[in-house]
């Protein structure tokens, strides 16, 4: 029988447990040694409701909304179900009751106790009691005759007794059990079971077999056994239709027999082999729930669904009198069973042989399976809930079963029935996963995290007293904590540095609303609210920098500005799963189609707003682990899209490999137990941190006690990471991947942490060098060359040195070829750069000359403005630096020189550039992103560095910039001759150093004077002239005269530049 054994889960503390289903089969109810009765909606229910019934619960029975339990206070209590309200005490014993059970109608309860008594009590009137005396030891179990006449009980005195309830007298007693003195010493719990509906047989577990006694005649008619059962049977339970008998043993085996054929149709073993002490059939007969003495709950699924419908006419009392001979002797005549189980759908009549039974299972299986799938949609976010894809299909499993059941030859030998209903055996569609907010716990929880991200946490409380939302910021500098009453029933939230966005679904009267608390607004209105059109529900939302996005049930994404202005609106190709925003990027995951066999078919879109609005990833499939679903979606703090699936695999976008997704971590690797999870709340690339909350035994953290964030390291799943080689490779590629964001940030105009970038490059090159050395040691020269190709030119030179030192001349030879190649590549790039720069320069000049004309008038007035001066100086410095570098650092100076001069001639400070240079001067290493005008600092800095390098490397005298007007340079110009005279042997760089030292030694007054003069230079010639006219200070005039002389001087020197630089370049190239 193709039945699926679901994984066990923890239910109660260690000790005796019992299990039953409620009348509808909706709930599994268990009781255990911890005194709790737990009500599970399904096996995956992470948060079962519980009713505490006492210190210990020994037994339970459930019928008609009444929950009867036997507890350690020696009472048999009633609770209402499912509310769990105490509903009085049914009866008391002098010691604890051991087993309680309902009769078929639910009007009576029988309880057996350790004080040797069995009591039968009317549920409606607990004074109506009947006490059955006669056992000479504690009672093990009791069971009602479904027809209500008799009651059977088993006792530690070794007897199984059938009582006539009315007469309170023993009808018959079988001394079949082993004698013991107490229930705890009994080898078996000996749970008796009376066949439902027909009430024909009483099943008595005796040692490793189950004896069937016939009603009325009380003859022992048959014995059910199995080879696997080598330990005593604890529990027996009839299927609701009465055709099957399940029994569970101390050794953890669960066996199901077909009563007609007396053949075993199902064998399962407890996953750990613990003693099974509770067993219950689902009312539909499709599932068996069982519990063990360790307090765990398990479920077998996929039994034949032979449901006795309620409108089935009651079995006439006389029918079964036809005798069992009919049943077992006459194969053709299935009439009795048919009548006994007169459901039209009942497969019983076909079940003459095991094969047929199995075929039926195949048929029936499809139905409950799909039915289950529907349920699963609702509980999708629960653990294991997606393994509906792992539904076992009848056929293949059937073959396996045959091997197992080789002893039951009938099953294989039986002829296949000719008429089979068509069975769909192909892939099953997966229910699409529901939309969710990344970083939130499931909506159905009363206390939940509605959002936990890098900015703050939003907690939602939805219990009887209160429906409220608490917003708390990690950094209290952002905003103080907020407490909101949630009168609208918001279920979705996002929080950013600027605002809190909330949304609720529509109700009958109210439309779906979006509510934004824009706390960073500088006006007095700190919130706004928008109603979505009729019939449109918000499904997912997110906040970016200055915008908000809401995806709705009509497959539309609506964009708003953070202040509440409606922006773009666009359609999605499928139902949204979740969204995430960061800076100017919006990441949307949606259903691309229907997935099959547990897979989700997700698509992803990445949009970039800002100046250049574009779609970076246009609806490509989102790769997730097999049979998993999406758990978290977001951006790293640096702005790289990232997501986590239910298998715990974290994947990050690799922008340098055509927007592919690279797995960077598997959080399940670090989990100690199978049911532990990490709940991801944030990802940082620099430093490499995966911030998550460890959840013991669940997927989600509880709101209380307040969970603490843990940090996990990243690890690319490369091969052989235990070896040194693998480790280094992993480190290298991780470093490469996690520093991709630098190029992205600089390309999209953000400020970049240069120090970090160069450090990461250094780290990568170091790793390459190490790998190179390792390969060298292993005499893998080809590999060495491959590695060298990843290195920069400088490192290749190092590698050549290493190779030649370790006497690998052939390798060194090859490496030098690579070095040459790299050098020529760099040269090419530089040339490209030059053309690029000259273009930029051209445009800059154009702009400037325009501005020059425009500002001509203003100049006159503004030029004397003292406040402006430093700023202008800065700008000027910037431009000059820029131009100078363009001239000196990178390119052939011949073409450059006249340009530089040209620019200098009509250099005007442009006020537009002021903020640019200001922000370029600031160094902010925090991951907070600051948009910059394009290519501002990055390039200058780079070029400046390049120049420095060149100066150092080339060691050639480069003329100091004549136009650099900072005070020391100015001073240097003046005093150069002195210095050179003093130290004739000094190189240019040394001269500068020397000069700097001397300048520092100057008195404050002198420096101030130089500062003044430096300022004076910021204006252009016209300014100077004007100043000459307006200011009548002879000293200043002198100074200016001097300056002009300087400038001329400098220009002369400048004329020298090209040749020296050319030589420097040539030198460098060698």
């Amino acid at each position, binding site marked *: 029988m193709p039945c699926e054994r679901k994984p066990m889960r923890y239910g109660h503390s260690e000790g005796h447990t019992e299990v039953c289903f409620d009348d509808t089969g909706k709930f599994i109810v268990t009781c255990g040694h911890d005194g709790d009765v737990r009500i599970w909606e399904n096996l995956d229910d992470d948060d079962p409701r519980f009713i505490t019934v006492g210190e210990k619960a020994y037994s339970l029975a459930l019928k008609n909304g009444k929950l009867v339990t036997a507890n350690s206070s020696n009472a048999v209590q009633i609770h209402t179900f499912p509310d769990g309200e105490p509903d009085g005490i049914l009866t008391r014993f002098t010691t604890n009751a051991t087993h309680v059970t309902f009769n078929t109608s639910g009007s009576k309860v029988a309880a057996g106790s350790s004080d040797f008594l069995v009591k039968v009590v009317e549920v409606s009137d607990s004074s109506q009691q009947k006490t059955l005396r006669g056992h000479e030891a504690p009672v093990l179990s009791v069971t009602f005759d479904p027809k209500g006449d008799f009651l059977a009980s088993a006792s530690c005195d070794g007897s199984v007794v059938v009582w006539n309830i009315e007469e309170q007298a023993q009808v018959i007693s079988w001394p079949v059990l082993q004698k013991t003195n107490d229930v705890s010493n009994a080898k078996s719990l000996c749970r008796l079971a009376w066949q439902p509906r027909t009430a024909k047989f009483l099943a008595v577990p005796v040692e490793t077999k189950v004896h069937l006694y016939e009603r009325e005649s009380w003859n022992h008619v048959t014995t059910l056994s199995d080879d696997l059962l080598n330990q005593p049977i604890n529990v027996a339970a009839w299927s609701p239709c009465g055709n099957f008998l399940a029994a569970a043993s101390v050794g953890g085996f669960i066996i199901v027999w077909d009563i007609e054929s007396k053949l075993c149709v199902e064998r399962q073993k407890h996953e750990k082999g613990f003693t099974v002490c509770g067993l219950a059939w689902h009312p539909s007969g499709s599932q068996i729930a069982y519990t063990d003495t360790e307090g765990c709950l398990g479920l077998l699924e996929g039994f034949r669904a032979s449901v006795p419908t309620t409108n089935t006419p009651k079995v006439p009392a006389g029918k079964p009198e036809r005798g069992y001979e009919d049943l077992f002797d006459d194969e053709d005549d299935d009439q009795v069973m048919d009548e006994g189980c007169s459901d039209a759908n009942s497969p019983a009549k076909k079940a003459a042989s095991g094969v047929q039974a199995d075929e039926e299972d195949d048929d029936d299986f499809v139905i409950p399976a799909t039915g289950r799938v529907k349920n699963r949609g609702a509980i999708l976010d629960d653990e294991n809930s997606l393994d509906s894809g792992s539904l076992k299909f009848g056929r293949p499993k059937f073959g396996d079963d045959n091997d197992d059941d080789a002893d039951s030859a009938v099953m294989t030998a039986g002829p296949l029935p000719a008429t089979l209903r068509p069975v769909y055996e192909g892939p099953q569609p997966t229910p699409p996963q529901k939309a969710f907010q990344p970083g939130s716990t499931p909506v159905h929880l009363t206390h939940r995290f509605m959002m936990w991200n*890098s900015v*703050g946490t939003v907690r939602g409380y939805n219990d009887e007293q209160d429906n409220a939302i608490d917003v708390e*910021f*990690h*950094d*209290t*500098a952002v905003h103080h904590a907020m407490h909101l009453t949630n009168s609208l029933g918001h279920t979705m939230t996002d929080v950013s540095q600027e605002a809190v966005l909330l949304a609720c679904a529509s109700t009958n009267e109210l439309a779906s609303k979006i509510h934004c608390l824009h706390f960073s607004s500088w006006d007095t209105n700190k919130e706004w609210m928008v109603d979505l059109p009729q019939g449109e529900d918000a499904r997912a939302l997110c906040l970016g920098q200055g915008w908000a996005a809401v995806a709705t049930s009509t497959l539309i994404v609506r964009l708003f500005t953070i202040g509440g202005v409606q922006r773009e609106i666009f359609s999605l190709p499928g139902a949204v799963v979740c969204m995430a925003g960061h800076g100017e990027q919006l990441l949307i995951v949606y259903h691309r189609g229907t997935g099959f066999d547990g897979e989700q078919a997700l698509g992803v879109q990445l949009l970039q707003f800002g100046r250049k609005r574009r779609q970076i990833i246009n609806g490509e499939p989102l790769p997730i682990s097999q049979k998993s679903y999406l758990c978290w979606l977001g951006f790293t703090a640096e702005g790289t899209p990232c997501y986590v699936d239910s298998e715990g695999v974290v994947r990050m976008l690799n922008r340098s490999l055509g927007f592919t997704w690279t797995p960077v971590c598997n959080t399940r690797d670090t989990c100690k137990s199978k049911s532990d999870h990490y709940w991801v709340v944030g990802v940082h690339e620099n430093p490499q941190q995966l*911030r998550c909350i460890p959840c013991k035994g669940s997927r989600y953290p509880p709101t209380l*006690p*307040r969970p*603490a*964030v*843990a*940090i996990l390291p990243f690890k690319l799943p490369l091969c052989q990471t235990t070896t040194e080689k693998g480790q280094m490779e992993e480190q290298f590629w991780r470093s490469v991947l996690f520093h991709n964001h630098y190029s992205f940030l600089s390309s999209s105009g953000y400020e970049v942490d240069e120090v970090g970038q160069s450090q990461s490059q250094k780290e990568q090159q170091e790793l390459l060098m190490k790998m190179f050395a390792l390969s060298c040691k292993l005499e893998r020269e080809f590999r060495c060359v491959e590695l060298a190709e990843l290195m920069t030119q400088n490192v290749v030179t190092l590698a050549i040195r290493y190779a030649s030192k370790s006497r690998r001349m052939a390798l060194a030879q090859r490496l030098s070829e690579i070095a040459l190649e790299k050098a020529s590549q760099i040269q090419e790039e530089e040339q490209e750069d030059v053309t690029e720069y000259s273009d930029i320069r051209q445009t800059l000049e154009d702009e400037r000359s325009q501005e020059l004309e425009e500002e001509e008038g203003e100049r006159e007035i503004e030029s004397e403005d003292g406040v402006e001066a430093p700023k202008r100086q800065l700008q000027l410095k910037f431009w000059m630096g820029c131009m100078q570098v363009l001239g000196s650092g990178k390119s052939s100076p011949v073409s450059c020189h006249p340009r530089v001069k040209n620019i200098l001639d009509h250099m005007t400070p442009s006020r537009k550039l002021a903020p640019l240079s200001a922000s370029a001067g600031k160094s902010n290493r*925090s991951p907070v992103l600051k948009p910059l005008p394009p290519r501002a600092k990055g390039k200058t800095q780079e070029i400046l560095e390049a120049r420095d390098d060149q100066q150092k490397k080339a060691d050639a005298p480069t003329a100091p910039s004549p136009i650099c007007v900072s005070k020391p340079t100015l001073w240097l110009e003046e005093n150069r001759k002195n210095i050179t005279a003093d130290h004739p042997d000094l190189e240019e760089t040394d001269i500068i150093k020397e000069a700097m030292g001397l300048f520092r030694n100057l008195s404050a007054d002198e420096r101030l004077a130089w500062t003044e003069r430096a300022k004076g230079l910021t204006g252009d010639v016209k300014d100077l002239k004007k100043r000459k006219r307006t200011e009548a200070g002879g000293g200043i005039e002198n100074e200016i005269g001097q300056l002009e002389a300087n400038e001329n001087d400098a220009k002369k020197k400048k004329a020298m530049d090209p040749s020296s630089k050319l030589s420097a370049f040539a030198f460098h190239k060698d």
Partner: protein
Amino acid sequence: MDPSEVEFLAEKELVKIIPNFNLDKLYLIGGDLGPFNPGLPLYVPVWLALNLKQRQKCRVVPPDWMDVEKLEEMRELERNAATFTPAPCPYYMELTKLLLNHASDNIPKADEIRTLVKDIWDTRIAKLRLSADSFITQQEAHAKLDNLTLMEINTIRGFLLESLNCMYKLRSNLQPGSSKGPLADY
């Protein structure tokens, strides 16, 4: 040694906090602290934790051992064992006092913890007194006590040393033959 001095030493112990502000690394003589990221737990010395807590700049995460169940277990162990069991932390008394006085709102079941730690302390001090008593009555030359914390040693040191000195004096007076006479230092 003063109890406040022992407390001062205890303030060097590291405790986990969750800051609610952003700050780069602090470079101190005793070592670098931080960086402080809002919401991200990190270990800082107790003195800093309490200072930040008083300025409402962080939440204190109680140490692992500061948990009702663990302390109950320890109390039972301590009560049942004849010798000293290893203390939950070398500065358990000081830390309990400091953290519960200044950050009791961050520690679940603070009152129970206070009682439990006091119980453990009382048990241990009682044992200490008992062993001191037997040490003196049996006139042993030396004794060895393991797993004592600094604070515990400190509570008994003053009294024990004084009384031992005193007894030594008395004894040497009783047996003039054993030494040259009363010791000059006293």
